[in-house]
Every structure is written in structure tokens, then in C-alpha cells.
């Protein structure tokens, strides 16, 4: 598989332009982060000077979890719109008639979704950590938020969770026939990896750099596998006609497995 940088860049540029002019997506990208920023900030500011260590760890864990919801939920909304949105507008067919490979299309859409999501997530981490350092009455709270396991987790989990969320969202979008259904299902389906973070928050798992790296590696593998699955699922014929491509003598997509032609039910 060879990716063409020019085509990839064209897709990314278009996606950014469309995203920036879509009020619904801009609203989702703006409101959710603010909500998830306010909750931990209020909790941190409410703390007094002498906080028990158990409470400090709990607050650090819940802050960590809340901030990681952002890179999961924000790209899910964008990714869920990606294919079904094109189909609703009637832009999918013209796009598929170009030399664009499906991997380029999917990767371009993923990049356009991951960059703002991760950017927002890092910005939130910086704001919360910065405010804790400056304003937290108890230095232990500030120290808990910037401990190495927490930092490694924040830096690595945000793009990897966003990646997972995007591939799941695109997979749902490729099967859905309605944008709203795709966004609801995409958001739901992207949440499971947060379970591990929730276990850390609930102190079932003890946070450590090793655990963070292990989980990050597992997420990376899951992201790559999910990308390949989504690419294989992205079948031009099914997207245009609703019928899965049969391995005929020509046309269609390369990776389509041979099989009997059948109708694929839409979600």
C-alpha cells in the first residue's frame, strides 16, 4: 500500500475547512471541553490546605479520567460524521471517482479529527496542571497531578484514545445511514478503553509508568488493527449501492473478499 502525500494533504485540508464551517461540530468541540475542564477545576479550588493523601489520589485520578474523556468524545463526533455525512451530502460518489485510495481517504479524515482533539486535550491538561501549580492550596495536589505516571498517561493516552475513537467512529459511519445515529453509536462504541482509566481512578489498578506504557502499547496495537479493519470495511460498492462487492474480474476494491453478493443491512 502506497500513500500519496498530495492526496492525503488535499483530504486533510478539505476536512479542516469543512469542520471549521460546521456549527454542530464546532459546538461539540467547544462545549464539551469546557464542561470537562470546569469540574476538576472547581474540585481543586474547593480543597483546603491540608488534604488527606487518599483524597489527593482520588482527585488526581478523577481529573485524569475526566480530561481523557475529551479526546474520546470530541473525535467521535467528527469521525461519526465522516462517511455518512459525505453520503448525505452526495459528495461521496464524486470523491470515490477520483484516484484517491480508501486508505488515503480514511487516514486524511482521521488526521483531521485527531489534530484538533489532541490539541484541545493537551490544552486542557496544561490549563488544569498549570492552575493546580499556581492556585492549589495544598502542594500535594499539584504534585499528584504532575507525577510521572500521570504525565506519561496524559501525553500518550490522549492521541491513542482519540485514534481508537476515530476508527470506531468511521467504522460506524461507514455502516450508518443517519448522522445522528452514527454519532450516538460512535460515541458509545469509543468509550470501552476508558474502562482501564476508570479502574485507575477507582484505585483498582495502581498508577505507574509501567502500567501507563503497557496500556499505551495495547492501545497503539488496537488502533493499528482497527485502522486495517476499517480500511477493509470501506467498500466503494457497498457504500454506493448497499450491496457488498463480489470479487469479480475487475473494479471494486482490492481487499474485498470473494463471496456471494448480499445486501448489507444499514444501521
Amino acid at each position, binding site marked *: 500500500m502506497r500513500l500519496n502525500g498530495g*492526496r492525503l494533504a*488535499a483530504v486533510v*485540508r478539505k476536512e479542516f475547512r469543512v469542520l471549521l464551517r460546521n456549527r454542530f461540530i464546532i459546538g461539540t468541540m467547544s462545549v464539551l471541553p469546557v464542561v470537562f475542564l470546569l469540574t476538576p477545576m472547581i474540585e481543586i479550588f474547593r480543597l483546603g490546605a491540608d488534604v488527606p493523601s487518599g483524597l489527593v489520589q482520588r482527585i488526581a485520578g478523577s481529573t485524569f479520567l475526566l480530561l481523557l474523556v475529551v479526546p474520546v468524545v470530541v473525535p467521535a463526533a467528527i469521525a461519526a460524521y465522516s462517511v455518512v455525512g459525505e453520503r448525505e451530502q*452526495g459528495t461521496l*460518489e*464524486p470523491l470515490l471517482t477520483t*484516484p484517491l485510495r480508501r486508505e488515503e481517504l480514511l487516514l486524511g479524515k482521521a488526521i483531521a479529527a485527531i489534530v484538533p482533539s489532541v490539541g484541545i486535550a493537551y490544552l486542557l491538561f496544561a490549563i488544569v496542571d498549570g492552575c493546580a501549580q499556581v492556585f492549589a492550596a495544598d502542594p500535594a495536589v499539584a504534585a499528584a497531578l504532575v507525577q510521572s505516571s500521570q504525565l506519561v498517561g496524559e501525553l500518550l493516552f490522549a492521541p491513542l484514545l482519540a485514534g481508537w475513537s476515530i476508527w470506531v467512529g468511521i467504522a460506524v459511519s461507514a455502516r450508518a445511514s443517519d448522522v445522528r445515529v452514527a454519532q450516538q453509536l460512535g460515541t458509545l462504541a469509543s468509550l470501552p478503553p476508558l474502562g482501564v482509566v476508570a479502574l485507575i481512578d477507582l484505585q483498582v489498578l495502581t498508577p505507574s509508568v509501567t502500567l501507563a506504557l503497557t496500556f499505551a502499547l495495547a492501545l497503539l496495537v488496537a488502533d493499528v488493527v482497527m485502522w486495517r479493519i476499517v480500511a477493509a470495511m470501506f467498500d466503494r460498492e457497498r457504500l454506493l449501492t448497499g450491496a457488498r462487492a463480489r470479487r469479480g*474480474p*475487475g473494479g471494486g476494491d482490492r481487499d474485498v473478499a470473494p463471496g456471494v*453478493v448480499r445486501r448489507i443491512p444499514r444501521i
Partner: protein
Amino acid sequence: MTMRRTTGPRWFVRRRMGFGFRPASWQGWVLTAVAVGVAVALVVVLRRSVVTLVGVVAVLVVHQGIAALLTRGNGPAGRVADAAGDPPAVPTTPATPPAFATPPAAPSPAAVAAVAPAPDSVRSAPAALVVDDLTKRFSQRTAFEDVTFSVATGEVFGFLGPNGAGKTTTVRTLGTLIAPTSGTAVVAGIPLTAENGTEIRQRISIMPENPGLYLRLTVIENLELFAGLYGLRRPRPRIDQALETVNLGARGRDLCGSLSKGLRQRVGLARALLSDPAIMFLDEPTSGLDPVAAREVHDLINDLRQRGVTVFLTTHRLEEAERLCDRVAILNTRLRSVGRTDELRESLFSRSLVVETAAPLDAPGDVFTRTAGVDSWRTTGAEAAAGGAAGYVLSVADPRAAAPAVARALVAARADVLSIAESRHSLEDVYLELIDKDPEAARR
């Protein structure tokens, strides 16, 4: 719908934003480097002198003056020639067969036998499209079956058929969007296989009936996307030219959502022109256009024909197909007929003379059966005889030879002849004759 093309030096191009010119070739960069060098030297040598500022400004003015002289007369369209090597949106010379990586597969004898010959103007050209026994089935439904035809390079080929006949599915199949169930095809010299999809799509362009534009993007932003997908290195001049071609030069910065359906259709056409395709598949290109705009599209298609671009035109407008197409194919799941419209007429309808007399003849059988060149005759029906006049249709082998003999026979029979004319059948007659008697159409 005229194509503007100017040639000029490639050293500089006008800046898209701001004033002046920017280098577009190594010569331009050398000149610019020299200018910068002289300016830096002035600053270093003269230091704090007032002359420094004057000198630097003078160097900049001279540089831009040279650039302006070298790009003299190059407006937006002229920039096409300046673009680094990209061919124009519409080729100005007849297309030559592209140097394809894979030699085209030869059509089967059955395919050759079934296909009517292309017109003389394109008969000698290599086939741009060869379709042999192509079939597509979706589960229980057959979209099209055993379709065989070929299209010569530079030919305008009409593809007609009722709704649900399989026209769009055929175009999608040839455009590698859908895999055929069986059969073979060669598109723009490349065999239609799954592995060749990207290469085929690079050489063709498909304009669907719905132009499918991003309504939140401007016209230029839409075209920039597709220029990028086709790998055009300096897309802006090409975009400007494509927009000029469809008379949308002034609407480039408008949001597509603010355009009427007809204007969106034109943007779709401009998009199809961007990649300089060997074959253009146009699906109802005049759908939703007013008569003036439709005529401009017809002119554009004729222009493309002159320039050697193969056009595969899917349309419901029979008069459009008759006017534009070198040959037409009529599809109704199976291919019903392929050929020039006059050949189709001759194959479907016997040639005939229509005779109108002021009053019914006493013994028309006696008059017409004895006339040389008349094979058979019938009356035109009650409606033709309204007002006392009578009409007769005479089947003849050669209308030009039979008409004088018929006139003489009518005069000898003391008939008052109102008119004798050759019966003309339109493409619509051909279409209706083929489709109405088609069991597939009856089932649909």
C-alpha cells in the same frame, strides 16, 4: 465557452495574493537571488547612508519590472501556460493515445461483431473504451447483462435507456466503483481489474447527475480539493481556466451552497475538466440547466470532441443525444442497439413516402401497386383524413427514385396532390420502438 490560452515565459507568475510576481522556475529564482544579493550588498557597503534605502527600493523595482515584462499579458488564463508543466484543463490539440502501462486487451470476436462501426471521423482512432460481455448482478436483480460495445477515441457516445435500465451502474462499473459480475472491459487503454482501479480513475472523470459539491466550501475550494486528488501540482491556473470554460470565472469565491442548481451543475463540469481526462463520463450533464446554459454545455461537449476527448454521455434527452452523439447505445438491462442514429432508423423502420391528397383516391391499390419502386402501402389513418384530405404511407426502397414515379401515377389518376415527402423518424421513434417492444420494459 471559449478556451483562452496564452503562452509566455515561465520564469515568474503573478502572485495570487499581494502585489508583484514570484519566481516559477530556476531562472526566476536566479534573477531573484541576484536582486537580493545586490540589495544585501548595498546595505553592507553603504550602511547608514540614505542612499541605501533608495538603492534597495530601486533594486526591488527593477526586479519586479523584469518579472512584469517577462509575464506580460499573462492574466489568469495565461497563468495556465506558466504552471509548471501541468497540461491545460482541455487539451488544445487532438489527444494522442496515451502511453499506457498495460497494453489494451483485444475485444472478443463477438464483441467486434455486435458493435456497429464508429463514424468515419473516429473510425481510425484507437478504442478508448472496449466493453465485452459485461454483466452486473445484485443478488436477485440484474443491473445489466452481456453488454458489449466499444467507443473510439474522440467519439461522443450516447448511452440511453429508461429508468432502471442499468446506465448509471454501467458507468459506475466502468469507473471502477463497482466490480462487474462477469465480462471484461478496457477503459482508457487499461484493463478493468481491481488492481488497476487507481490508474483508471486517474485517466477518466465522472460527473454524476448530482454534482455532489461541498456546500460549505467555495467553488475554488471545492475544485482545489479535486485538483489535489488528481495530483495537479499548481492547481490554481487550471482551476481558473476550468471555471472560465464553464463561464463561472466570477463566482469562484462564492460558497457552493449559495449557487443555483444550474450553477452547481456547471461547477461539477468544471471539476470534471480539471484532470484533463482521456474519457469523460457525463451523467445527465444538462439536467436542471436553462436552455442557454444547456446550449453552452452542448458547445462544450462539441469542443471536447474537437479536441479529441472521448465523451460518454448518459442522457434522457433524446434530441440532445441526436444532436451531440456520433453513436448511441440503447440499454434496457441488455444492450438493445448500438450505432449511428441514421443506421438505427434504417434498421428499425422501412423507408417510406408520405403522400397527402385533397380527397381520398377512388382506387389507391390500383394506383400504388402498379407504381415502380413502391413495395406496399397503407392509409395514415382517420386523423390524417380529417377535413377531407387523405394520407397514404408508401414503403419504398429508395424514396428519391420512387417519388417521381408516385407523382406521375397520382397525376394520371387525376388526384389533387397536396404533398409527397419522405417520412423522417427521430431518435425518439427509434428509442420508443426499441423500448416499447421490450419485454424487460414491460416487466419494470
